[in-house]
């Protein structure tokens, strides 16, 4: 217990815990005005010292500022959706009343809608002509005459259009949008009713309730020119905010408040509209960028690589050859996508997961990168009925014990004796049928017996127990907690503002197959079936069945855990190829991961004691080359005792990555630095260590960049220092090692 109040003050500010006695002493000391004055002087001096000496904060502050602006833009969107919601907890009472009123209004609105007064159609008045459609409606182009016009949308947006302005009505119910081609618009948006976006040739202005003015001019174009879509011109967009806040997406995000204005300049690109066949589309496209690249760009579609089951587009394949506008949306991948955009140019071929969230263009979701080596990247998946796991019939082939090498072949429909080997790693084909009941389903595992192919098994699983849930997520052993481990499941929830992700952590209980799951799959992606019990904190799950999904890091195909038993020789898994086509793989996994910034744990397969050789063959997108695989024993997570005091260089294989950390399976302790006090650093070999990069103003840029570039499966050398417990810091260096 210290009795020196200045020291206690210093410790309190530093965040160190004070004992009750120390806190009392400090409080008593600061009750004296004389000491308070002294303390003020001490603090003031320290502040000045920091201010004078902290010269290198500029860059850190700039990055932090950018993050604030991005956060503000996201928040503005979210708040605009939460009409009447309380903004501060301290206003709970007021908010409750407002929420009640909002509910009442919503109910009233619903009644009105039911009584025939639905969502208001766009209405225009004044001097205008509708070009290319019979009336004012979605998609209609309005050319305003000399006297100006007014456009009303959704009952909450009023747009005053200046003479000679040209706009196209876009958007939909509650997410109104207008494309300003030329001229000037004053937009008045009533707060809390819905979203509004003003699309300009070089960017987008998004608002919640506000009043702002926007103009689009083409300084270089000839007066009276109307050929807006063909000539590339310099466009100048001016945004001036009267009230409220607007977020301007013109390459970067700028947030403007009342009285603020900003001018944006850029090149007009012909704005592509969303082809009707892509309405409601959710999936992965391959195509070529046909415009200059900014947050929005045009993509000429060359291939519909994947259609997610939730997609509502009826015939997306008909969009091949068409050009669509694609925008990089505000989601958790934003920073990575912006980084990817920097390396992209007009003419580049890209692979992009894109959803129709706005009705007039597609929005980039998770996957966005350059296509390398042509069209074998995209996989095709069968469109399935939602509620995965319910009422499904699984077709699965198994091998008997003692089989030396099991090969499966499939006869394509109607093609007689032609047999095709399946490329390995694709897993099973699922055929789903509509099924209303989630419980009591019957699963069938069946195979067709063919000559020389071993025995046919037919297995019916038991009806699923009540409360049983199927989940896909990542497992992590947690020896320091009251459960065996945790299962982290990322659920994607579709909201009006897009798809959001929510992570739910389940505690794996020491019952059922929990122990086996944690032992076999820690750090890996699994699909489990189990009984979930909600709790006060994290829900608990008793594992009934599980299957490891992640195998070797590859190109994102589904990886089944190899069927393998002790004493077996070589086991090969082979897959079905879709009938007569070369479409790539059929897989179960919803989101294709490409190893970049996924934040997932992924582990390469390891050879286990007593097992025969497991040979895994992968269908690689680019040439089918296999990555070198480390031949080390699976040793679990390195303990704090092993790591204690370690400072040095490690070599290992990346088995998982997050935005600020990398998980390595250590192959080698290259060097222990002189300052290292670890007693037995070599004990790290074969174990998993997590190296965290400290992100702050002093973050090493080279490390940040290197961390962004490594992916699961890479062999790397990394500088590591022990921080505390099992935590290690990534320091000095992180570099990929050449393949062995």
């Amino acid at each position, binding site marked *: 217990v210290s009795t020196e109040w200045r020291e206690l003050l210093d410790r309190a500010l530093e965040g160190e815990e004070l004992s009750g006695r120390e*806190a009392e002493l400090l409080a008593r000391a600061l009750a004296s005005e004389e000491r308070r004055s002294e303390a003020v002087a001490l603090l003031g001096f320290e502040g000045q010292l920091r201010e*004078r000496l902290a010269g290198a*904060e500029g860059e850190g502050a700039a990055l932090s500022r950018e993050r604030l602006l991005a956060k503000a833009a996201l928040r503005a969107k979210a708040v605009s959706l939460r009409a009447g919601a309380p903004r501060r907890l301290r206003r709970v009472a007021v908010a409750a009343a407002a929420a009640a009123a909002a509910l009442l209004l919503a109910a009233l609105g619903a009644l009105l809608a039911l009584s025939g007064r639905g969502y208001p159609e766009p209405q225009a008045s004044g001097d205008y002509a509708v070009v290319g459609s019979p009336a004012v409606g979605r998609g209609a182009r309005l050319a305003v005459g000399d006297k100006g016009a007014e456009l009303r949308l959704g009952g909450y947006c009023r747009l005053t259009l200046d003479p000679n302005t040209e706009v196209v009505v876009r958007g939909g119910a509650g997410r109104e949008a207008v494309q300003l081609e030329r001229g000037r618009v004053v937009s008045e948006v009533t707060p809390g009713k819905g979203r509004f976006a003003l699309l300009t040739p070089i960017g987008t202005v998004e608002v919640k309730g506000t009043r702002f003015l926007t103009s689009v001019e083409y300084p270089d174009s000839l007066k009276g020119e109307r050929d807006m879509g063909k000539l590339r011109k310099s466009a100048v967009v001016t945004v001036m905010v009267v009230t*409220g806040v607007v977020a301007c997406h013109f390459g970067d995000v700028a947030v403007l408040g009342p009285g603020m204005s900003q001018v944006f300049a850029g090149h007009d690109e012909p704005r592509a509209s969303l082809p009707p066949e892509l309405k409601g589309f959710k999936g992965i496209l391959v195509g070529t960028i046909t415009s200059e690249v900014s947050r929005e760009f045009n993509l000429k579609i060359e291939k519909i690589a994947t259609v997610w089951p939730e997609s509502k587009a009826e015939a997306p394949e008909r969009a091949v050859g068409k050009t669509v506008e694609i925008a990089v949306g505000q989601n958790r991948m934003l920073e990575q996508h912006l980084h990817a955009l920097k390396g992209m140019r007009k003419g580049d071929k890209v692979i992009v997961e894109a959803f129709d969230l706005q009705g007039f263009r597609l929005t980039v979701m998770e996957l966005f990168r350059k296509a390398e080596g042509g069209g074998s990247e995209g996989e095709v998946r069968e469109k399935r009925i939602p509620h995965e796991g319910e009422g499904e019939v699984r077709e699965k082939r198994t091998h008997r014990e003692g089989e030396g090498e099991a090969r499966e072949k499939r006869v394509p429909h109607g093609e007689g004796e032609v047999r095709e080997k399946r490329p390995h790693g694709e897993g099973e084909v699922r055929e789903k049928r509509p099924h209303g009941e989630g419980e009591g389903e019957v699963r069938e595992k069946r195979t067709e017996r063919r000559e020389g192919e071993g025995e046919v098994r037919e297995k019916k699983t038991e009806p699923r127990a009540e409360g049983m849930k199927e989940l896909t997520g990542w497992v992590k052993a947690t020896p320091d907690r009251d459960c065996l481990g945790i299962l982290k499941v990322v659920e994607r929830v579709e909201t009006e503002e897009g798809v959001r992700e929510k992570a739910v952590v389940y505690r794996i209980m020491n019952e059922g197959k929990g122990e086996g799951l944690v032992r076999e799959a820690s750090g890996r992606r699994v699909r489990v079936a189990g009984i979930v019990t909600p709790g006060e904190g994290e829900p608990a799950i008793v594992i009934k069945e599980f299957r490891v999904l992640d195998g070797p890091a590859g190109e994102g195909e589904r990886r089944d855990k190899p069927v393998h038993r002790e004493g077996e020789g070589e086991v090969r898994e082979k897959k079905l190829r879709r009938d007569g086509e070369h479409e790539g793989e059929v897989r179960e996994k919803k989101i294709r991961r490409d190893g970049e910034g996924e934040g997932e744990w992924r582990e390469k397969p390891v050879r286990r004691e007593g097992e025969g050789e497991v040979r895994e063959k992968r269908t690689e997108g680019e040439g089918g080359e296999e990555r070198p695989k480390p031949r080390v024993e699976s040793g679990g997570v390195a303990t704090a005792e092993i790591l204690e005091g370690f400072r040095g260089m490690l070599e290992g294989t990346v088995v998982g990555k997050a935005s600020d950390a990398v998980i390595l399976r250590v192959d080698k302790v290259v060097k222990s630095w002189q300052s290292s006090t670890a007693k037995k650093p070599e004990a790290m070999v074969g174990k998993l260590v997590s190296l965290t990069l400290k992100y702050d103003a002093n973050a090493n840029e080279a490390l940040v960049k290197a961390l962004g570039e490594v992916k699961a499966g890479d062999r790397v050398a990394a500088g590591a220092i022990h921080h505390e417990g099992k935590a290690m810091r990534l320091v000095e260096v992180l570099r990929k090692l050449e393949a062995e």
Partner: protein
Amino acid sequence: VDRHYEGAWAYSRFLTRGAAEAEDLVHEAFLLAFDRLAAGEEFAGDAGAWVRGTLRNLVKAWWREKRRLPRDVVQHLATLVERADEAPSLASRQELQAALDHCLGLLSAEDRELVARRYERGLRITEIAAELRRNAATVRVQLFRIRQALKLCVEGQLARGMGT
């Protein structure tokens, strides 16, 4: 944002002694400011001062909730930092800089290095201790003494009119 962000960010790092939450706190203060603008409310006086005041309140809550400091200690700290922020500077920036440079030059190499780690690189005491493989309490006490010595030295310099 352009005008006030950097100052507020440094202030937040100062109040939280470089804790990881410093950025979240300064963001929260600015988001509150945006809310205020969105609601059509004006800032009475300097917007920067408003942000700093809001930041202090947020840090105060943070001290209480995250650092678990006793309520009365938090109240005292909040008062102290507010007064320190509002206190007129002892001297002009130039004078102070000159005096500081002089006094820093009088420090031993080891002490100078410690000051650099703490205030130039913005490391936390635990981080410095880890780097130097020393006890955190020792580092904190040493820094405290260095500050005391510097403060006396700077005050002496300024009093003697030798700041410039």
